[in-house]
């Protein structure tokens, strides 16, 4: 049985290698695909020629994620939200937020090093998140980096140490909801302003668009914030960091009662 599996895997790999060798020219996408990339790259930061289409962000990836294809990202955030909500629903009633017993954790050396490195991890995460419109990074990556800090604390100290310091799942849920509400508000803020002023703007609008002359500030006192991109990154960072911290803590806290 095992030998059959091995043969199947080997044949699959060899066949795919042959496919690559024969069809190498066709595996590479044709240059027609490049036109899309060229538009995105050209429009990412271009106040000179494309004032009505640019996202005013030097980082092409973030400008796609939160401006050109912002609606995609909104729905991906919804998937993220639903996956975590489903997990929390499964965990409901299986964990208690009050500390059950005192625990020692690892040795003093490890604890001291963790206490030094954890603030650095959080600072790096915030930096990645808030500079998402300038350098590689953004809300998703920054939030994921921040969520590492509570995980390290859970491993080195204990989950009850984290709970005693006030990082409880219920509070994380509130923080995450705040982040998601912020994303929702940021996406409609220009639309609301336009409604109040009697002009016209799109939902998810960032900079000036043809027919909608209202715009978010591209920079504040000389510092480039790229309009909505900075706010989206900030709130997404909040939502991702809080959501993952909550999930990690609950996974560790889950216990089945004696009756089961």
């Amino acid at each position, binding site marked *: 049985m095992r030998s059959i599996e091995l043969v199947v895997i080997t044949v699959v790999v060899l066949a795919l290698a042959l496919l690559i060798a024969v069809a190498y020219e066709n595996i590479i996408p044709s240059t027609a695909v490049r036109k899309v990339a060229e538009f995105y790259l050209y429009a990412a930061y271009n106040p000179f020629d494309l004032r009505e289409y640019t996202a005013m962000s030097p980082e092409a990836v973030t400008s796609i994620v939160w401006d050109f294809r912002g609606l995609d990202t909104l729905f991906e955030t919804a998937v993220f939200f639903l996956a975590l909500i489903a997990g929390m629903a*499964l965990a409901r009633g299986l964990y208690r937020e009050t500390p059950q017993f005192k625990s020692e954790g690892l040795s003093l050396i490890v604890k001291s090093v963790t206490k030094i490195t954890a603030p650095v991890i959080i600072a790096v995460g915030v930096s990645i998140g808030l500079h998402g419109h300038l350098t590689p990074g953004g809300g998703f990556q920054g939030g994921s980096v921040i969520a590492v800090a509570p995980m390290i604390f859970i491993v080195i100290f204990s989950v009850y140490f984290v709970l005693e310091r006030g990082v409880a799942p219920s509070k994380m849920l509130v923080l995450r909801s705040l982040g998601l509400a912020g994303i929702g508000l940021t996406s409609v803020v220009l639309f609301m302003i336009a409604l109040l002023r009697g002009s016209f703007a799109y939902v998810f609008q960032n900079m000036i668009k043809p027919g909608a002359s209202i715009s978010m500030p591209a920079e504040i006192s000389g510092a480039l914030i790229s309009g909505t991109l900075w706010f989206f990154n900030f709130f997404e960072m909040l939502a991702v960091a809080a959501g993952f911290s909550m999930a990690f803590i609950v996974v560790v806290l889950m216990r089945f009662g004696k009756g089961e």
Partner: protein
Amino acid sequence: MEFLNTYLLSIVLAALFANIAIALYGVFFKPHYIKKLIALTIFSDTANTFAIYLGYRRWTALGSPRVPVLVELEKDAIREFTARAVDPLPQALVLTAIVIGLAVVLFLVFLGYVLYGHYKTLDMREIKKLRG
């Protein structure tokens, strides 16, 4: 040099396919739930790498491709940037896919926990035998 570049890229591509094969093997034949989960993460990471790879091309005669981040905010720099930078679209899609993948894996971990609480085992052969 041209041949060497092509050959190295082919190796990366072949390695990705081999990775997919190994991950699928793990998902289908490993009996333990957690090992299936690990194989699944390998599979999704391979798919993400593959998507990134599709964006990378030696498009231009201007030299090697560069990161899609504009460094100088000037008109000429933008033109050069447009000609040379790699396709940012796959990167943007992969960036969200990674976080969504992590959230889905966390959901599956929760599911595994409940599975263990119900059956007192995570061995899929045992669970298949129990039926209910």
